[in-house]
């Protein structure tokens, strides 16, 4: 890390108090940079404005809107815009880091309002839609103000190239690899066991595909068990599953980081049958870091994260027959399982925050080469004069 300490402004587009991949990425990054001695301020929408960490500034209460097939908690409007401008003006930042500047929230507003070194990180991966043609002309002039673009995965990068005809540097999401490195074996979860972590109620996490693959596995390995960790209503989830399989499933609820490390070290296989909507797959990176042998669907994000099958086994997405075949093969071959897991564990170190944050900081440095700092853009200054502010 360099000797000079910088003032870094980070904008998070989604509500700070709702759990999500972008939010935890922003939190971990901000805390890492603060530990390195930089001054960091995060601007984010928040419901509970009282209980925010001191580096977070609230931009107001988020609004829930349906966006791209899910409900997003975002924030926009004149009051939010005024707060964004004020935050930029008061922060005298050396660099701004905007997350998801292509969705209608405060990152886009900040990108519109500011001028100077700006870095944008694109998390989402989506298929090209007709609406893109309508949206691109509005977004392009704003997005092109970014000095540098980061995509969290190849899939996110392709989305960006397709939608906005602009390229990005790929820097993966970060994990704290050392938290998962030394998990101890827990007897409860060893044997012919299958692990699954995530919000299992969501259809796209693909629990039903795993359930459909199970009968074939049971016929070969009658003692196979499935352990599911993560928040959600297990009763409701079981209703969707064939009653004869109920005894196979154990729901653990939300587990602590330490338990997660033990869980990943203990289960024979970790399965990620997601059907899509995944851009990076942070849980797979954690599973690899924990030394689990991973079986995942071949959606683009997982395919690229697992090095096209080098660091984990891929099965054809939404194909239960293929999944059960892969499970049977791996449960019968412990040495193969171990080799892949060992390779994956080593590879997962690349996602450690020490490596990832360093790369992000390299991008900041490149953006700051011009020597100018972040200010309100000239259009906005004229606009302010006009309004008499």
């Amino acid at each position, binding site marked *: 890390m360099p000797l000079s300490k910088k003032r870094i402004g980070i904008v998070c587009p989604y509500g700070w108090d709702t759990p999500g991949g972008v939010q935890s990425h922003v939190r971990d990054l901000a805390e890492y940079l603060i530990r390195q001695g930089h001054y960091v301020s995060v601007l984010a929408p928040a419901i509970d404005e009282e209980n925010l960490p001191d580096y977070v500034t609230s931009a107001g209460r988020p609004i829930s809107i349906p966006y791209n097939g899910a409900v997003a908690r975002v924030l926009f409007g004149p009051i939010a815009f005024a707060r964004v401008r004020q935050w930029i003006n008061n922060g005298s930042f050396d660099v701004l880091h905007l997350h998801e500047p292509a969705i209608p929230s405060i990152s886009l507003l900040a990108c519109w309002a500011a*001028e100077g070194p700006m870095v944008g990180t694109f998390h989402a991966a989506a298929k090209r839609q007709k609406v893109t043609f309508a949206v691109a002309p509005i977004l392009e*002039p704003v997005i*092109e*103000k970014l*000095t*540098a*673009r980061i995509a969290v995965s190849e899939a996110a990068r392709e989305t960006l190239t397709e939608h906005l*005809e*602009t*390229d*990005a*540097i790929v820097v993966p999401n970060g994990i704290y690899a050392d938290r998962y490195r030394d998990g101890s074996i827990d007897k409860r979860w060893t044997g012919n066991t299958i692990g699954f972590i995530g919000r299992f109620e969501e259809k796209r996490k693909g629990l039903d595909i795993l359930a459909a693959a199970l009968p074939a596995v049971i016929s070969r390995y009658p003692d196979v068990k499935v352990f599911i960790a993560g928040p959600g209503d297990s009763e409701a989830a079981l209703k969707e599953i064939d009653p004869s399989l109920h005894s196979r499933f154990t729901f653990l609820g939300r587990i602590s980081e330490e338990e997660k490390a033990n869980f990943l070290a203990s289960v024979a296989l970790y399965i990620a049958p997601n059907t899509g909507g995944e851009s990076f797959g942070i849980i797979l990176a954690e599973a690899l870091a924990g030394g689990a042998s991973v079986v995942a669907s071949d959606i683009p994000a997982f395919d690229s994260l697992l090095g096209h099958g080098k660091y984990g086994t891929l099965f054809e997405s939404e194909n239960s027959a293929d999944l059960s075949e892969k499970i049977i093969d791996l449960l019968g071959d412990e040495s193969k399982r171990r080799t892949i897991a060992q390779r994956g564990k080593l590879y997962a170190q690349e996602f450690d925050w020490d490596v990832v944050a360093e790369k992000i900081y*390299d*991008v900041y440095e*490149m953006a700051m*080469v*011009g020597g100018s700092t972040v200010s309100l853009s*000239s*259009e906005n200054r004229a606009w302010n004069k006009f309004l008499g502010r």
Partner: protein
Amino acid sequence: MSKYILGALFLTFIAWYLSYSATRLDRLHNRVETSWANLDGLLQRRAAIAIEIARSEISDPASSLLLTFAAHQAREASVRDRSQAETGLTGALGILLETSTDISGANEQDLIRELKDLTEKIKMAVAMHVDAVNRTQMVRKKWFIRFFRLAGHAPEPVTYEFEGDVL
């Protein structure tokens, strides 16, 4: 009467749009310049390291000669010939590092490590610069920007064809 008001509004809109487009273009040219300054700085550092490697124990006299020659050429090349000269240097470094299998000596290992870190950064800098150039060229091609000569005297940005996979 309303015809005149409409006309005035239209003219105001045109004026605003032109000034907006000019600012946008100016910002893009600025991005091209800063990203180039960044890339140029990194490439200069690489050339310096290449010369140091040429003088170290890693390289034999023939490679030293090749490397020194390539490094000097890269440093002296004009903007237009720069990418070709740099590709030449990349090639020379590649040949040397491929053939020299056992690199002992802390000094030499430090040099190689520094070169590797730098290569990573150069890749990023190239991506940033190429993107800035492409966008600028795209915007400059718009008919009203050409018609009203909004680009002014700013030189047309040069595409930098750096072979990413050679690195």
